């Protein structure tokens, strides 16, 4: 069964710090790995990484995929209080997403 593990489960930092969130995966037929941000309700899409796109960047957020070591990281630089959320990593199979348990990130002013 496909498995996605995120670490740490919880992280508290000060505004302005840089954070790195980790996601490791064990899947039988890798297609894509996705990152979502969940603030109150719906997960909102951040990045999708595939064999042909192993590095993505958007503003202060960036993500890389290491297909050999089977992990991905999400980096957030110059964190702001609005970055406080649960960050979800998911394996994107053909028909469904398999989510990790998420990392709860808290940014203190």
């Amino acid at each position: 069964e496909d498995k996605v593990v995120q670490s740490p489960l919880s992280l508290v930092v000060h505004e302005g710090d840089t954070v790195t969130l980790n996601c490791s995966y064990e899947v039988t037929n890798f297609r894509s790995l996705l990152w979502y941000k969940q603030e109150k309700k719906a997960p909102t899409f951040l990045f999708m990484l595939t064999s042909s796109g192993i590095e993505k960047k958007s503003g202060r957020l960036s993500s890389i995929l290491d297909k050999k070591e089977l992990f991905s990281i999400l980096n957030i630089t110059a964190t702001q209080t609005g970055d406080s959320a649960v960050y979800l990593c998911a394996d994107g199979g053909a028909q469904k997403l398999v989510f990790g348990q998420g990392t709860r990130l808290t940014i203190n002013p």
Partner: protein
Amino acid sequence: EPEVTQTPSHQVTQMGQEVILRCVPISNHLYFYWYRQILGQKVEFLVSFYNNEISEKSEIFDDQFSVERPDGSNFTLKIRSTKLEDSAMYFCASSSTLIGTGVDTIYFGEGSWLTVV
């Protein structure tokens, strides 16, 4: 920006009652999904739906659950006889292509919070 909309946002129901959760996927999307998240736990896949039939379902999606696309815009999840353990946030989602093709991703609705008492 197009979005997936869900109703109701919150429903309280008595154990054993039937519940229907409604969703309007993004209009040009072809693949539809239901996920759920029990409080404090992972987001879990329930079912995917394409071309008017279920394409994959999880172990959670037993005979008490059913999905339907009654018209060209709505997508519903029915729980026939609710149990206490069905209390969760239910997310509807849609995508224009199969996930993993690198073309598009899944877009989630705001969720329907179901409380079974």
